[in-house]
């Protein structure tokens, strides 16, 4: 009997009301056209559009009214 196959860990995770987590090395092109290389194993990309350090998340979504959260 073979062992059950473990579910693969997703490379991209959408956090409800928060950022998109991306695992691995990527270059992200921000809305303003600038390009940013990831620097950590897992990076959080802003989805609310209000981050002070785009394209990365800085937690700002938490102070937005629930309706404006992604």
């Amino acid at each position, binding site marked *: 009997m073979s062992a059950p196959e473990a579910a693969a860990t997703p490379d991209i*995770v959408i956090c*409800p009301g928060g*950022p998109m987590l991306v695992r691995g090395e990527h270059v992200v092109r921000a809305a303003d056209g600038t390009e940013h290389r990831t620097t950590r194993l*897992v990076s959080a990309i802003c989805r609310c559009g209000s981050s*002070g*350090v785009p394209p990365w*998340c*800085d*937690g700002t979504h938490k102070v937005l009214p629930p309706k404006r959260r992604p």
Partner: protein
Amino acid sequence: MRLPKPRGPLSEQVFTELLDRPHSSPAPAADRADSPDDAALTLWALYELAYTGFDEVDDACEWDVELLRLRRDLEADLEARLRARWPGVPDYEGPLADALFAAIEAHDGPSLAAYVRSRASEEQVLDLLRLRTLYHLKEADPTSWVIPRLPAAPKAALVELQYDEYGGGRPEHVHSHLFVRGLEALGLRTDRGAYVDDVPLEVLEQNNAMSLFGLHRRLRGAALGHLAAFEATSSLPSRRMSQGLARLGLAPEMIAYYDEHVEADAVHEQMAMRAICEALVAEEPATEPDVWLGLFSCLDLEDRTAAALLTTWGEAA
């Protein structure tokens, strides 16, 4: 690191005995402490034996049974007080991670970072940074004790988070090292324990709670709940700290330390809530109450530190 100044009869006697060991002799009873400060400082020093120890103390003291007995009694008292302050698991619906985030958002406490951003003087900021050395110079270490005690999913996620705390393989990026660079640039001391004589009871308790949760497998849920609250109350306050330091024209190296936490902890909070706490509770449901205990204790202990410091500065907390 050198032993701190005693704060009462218990710490006085224990520090004297630490210098005498490895000669085995009975350690004093916990009730010899004549104040909460005396008990907390003694426990802090006993915990430090498990981290990097003291220059003048034999490393074997870490596992001295008499000292461990005393530590256990002091820990039992600390844990009982933390549990007594905790209101218990709240009612909630939906995913645990969302409920944990919501509980933190609903929590309203005094904010040192908000004060630093808008009003603190340079001397007050330096005071705060001296107190923060107690944790930031061993940043992430108390949580590392938990790793071997976890099932696969939360273990993998916690290691991923800790790897980032520890610089992603680059010593110059280790968070505690970034803090050291900031301290150096500000002309502050960078050796562990340099400012322990200056820290109030609340900071010792905050530090001891992290070691308590981290060192006891039984309390792994509390350690991870504490981690989740710590990470989830870091990004936005770190931004405020960065802005306050910039307002005062303080060292760019220390600003960089806080800027790193704005980004890093926006990742870590998601991992801590979803991939760590939620994953732990999914596999070990009995740990859930302690996850909430750890979360509450983190917020409550920081509130008490903030209130104490703001009072010292003559501000209503």
